[in-house]
């Protein structure tokens, strides 16, 4: 049994890159979207705030599989209608990344908003007192703390995203999860347990690595703030 599990590993592993590909794209564009949304949510303009919060609510209320189908089937006709560009046959990873970008944008923007608001306003005032302008205060004082506060939740989000490949499989993205489904099919379901255990093995290692990576990052950032007295959150 162990031999069989190990024999499936090399067949699954190359597809891990597909998983990492959509995760990387979604994280990159999702963070950019989140940055926009967060600044809209913290802005003085009521309309911007309304739009950003409205978008977040809609995204949170939509099950990911439905958003995936909406993007996959709905986006091409929409883009064709509005811009006249045919994206119908673009690589499926584009649609998967778009879907998770929308999701991540919404959820990360909430993480960032709450993190921003938990940084004491006295810090911005103190920064202003020593002559920093708004941009400098953000870059040097506020954002590093926000980032630190967001870290644990970011780790969770990343773990969640990596496992969403099983949904992306439905519209034809063959990542490591999808490969496992297909291998089950070609073996007529005769080795389901072995294949899934091999898959679990990959995810365990990956999850441990992510967890470790985030806790190292957290320790580093904490060291930066912690040693010189807790400058981050309010005590």
């Amino acid at each position: 049994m162990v031999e069989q599990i190990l024999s499936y590993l090399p067949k699954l592993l190359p597809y891990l890159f597909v998983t990492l590909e959509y995760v990387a794209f979604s994280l990159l564009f999702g963070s950019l979207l989140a940055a926009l949304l967060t600044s809209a949510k913290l802005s003085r303009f009521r309309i911007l705030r309304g739009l950003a919060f409205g978008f977040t609510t809609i995204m949170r209320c939509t099950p990911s599989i439905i958003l995936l189908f909406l993007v996959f089937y709905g986006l091409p006709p929409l883009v064709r209608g509005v811009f006249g560009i045919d994206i119908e046959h673009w690589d499926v990873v584009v649609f998967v990344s778009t879907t998770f970008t929308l999701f991540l944008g919404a959820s990360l923007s909430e993480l960032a908003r709450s993190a921003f608001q938990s940084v004491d306003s006295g810090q911005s005032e103190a920064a202003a007192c020593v002559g920093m302008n708004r941009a400098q205060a953000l870059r040097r004082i506020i954002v590093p703390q926000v980032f630190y506060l967001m870290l644990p939740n970011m780790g969770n989000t990343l773990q969640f995203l990596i496992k969403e490949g099983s949904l992306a499989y439905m519209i034809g993205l063959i990542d490591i999860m999808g490969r496992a489904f297909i291998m089950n099919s070609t073996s007529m379901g005769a080795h389901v347990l072995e294949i899934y255990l091999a898959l679990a093995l990959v995810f365990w290692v990956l999850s441990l690595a992510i967890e470790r990576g985030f806790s190292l990052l957290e320790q580093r950032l904490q060291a930066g703030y912690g040693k010189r007295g807790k400058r981050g959150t309010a005590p």
Partner: protein
Amino acid sequence: MESPVQPTSYQSPREKAILSRRSFIGMAGTAALALATGALTGCSSEASGASDTAGKKITVAFTNAGYPTAYLDDSGNPAGYEIDVLKRVEALLADYDFSYEGVDQIAVFAGLSSGKYDVGLTNSFWTPKRAETYLTPSQNIGVSVLGFLTRKEFADITTLEQAAKAKLRLAPITAGDGNYFVVEDYNSKHPDAQIELTATDDANAFTEAFGWVAEKRHDFTLVPLQYYDALVVDEDGPYHQYKDILAFSIIGATKTWSFLAKGRESFEADYSGALKQLKDDGTLAGLAKQWYGINNFEYLTDDSQNYNYL
């Protein structure tokens, strides 16, 4: 002849074995799609009409884990019986250029409804609801063979009617499985020799039934030949230990269909013509033998019927 009961959707047994919550959530996806197509692609019906005349490009969607009917092979290329049939069809239709997209079964149907795909390969049976929603070619693409799995003590039973009269207990069938419809169809035609039909939401019921029958919880179940080979005959098969207890025989066949998106009428004529030609010259039978190990078409005793069983 149709059964009075018309399930909205079901899969052929082979696909049903690709168990999962995916199909289940997929239904939700389809529901969303219905809204999406209404809201976002209000123009899709005209668009598909236009693509029928203008576009010679044909997008074929297939289930990517439907071995051996249609699936992605180890190097990620489309393969399987239905894929091979489509490649032969393409060779006959010089005017058309085919491209292939492997997705989940539910997404094949969703994409056919939205007009994203032209042809859908799902190893599906014909149902009235499907015929309403999609364009059905006049020629079926293949045949699914109905296997009867029981214990050696009942090995002389080779028809559903005999099984009913001997009061054999049928293992529960996953709701939505194509075999469910087969038994319903049988029951509607044999009011005096009914088979008790139990549905289950257990997606694994299809393969677990091998054990249930062997351990006498139930007396028989309906499975395709390849599954018997892979799970019982094969030495690595999970039910190989039951090989001296279980008995298998083929008791019937059902036509399987490819479906086209609405609005592809002119393509349908060419496509059905090509399929008919391939069936008549024996190409389909040869491909069936290659992929299923048997010529499925032989078991179709009455070509005018979708469902054939003894």
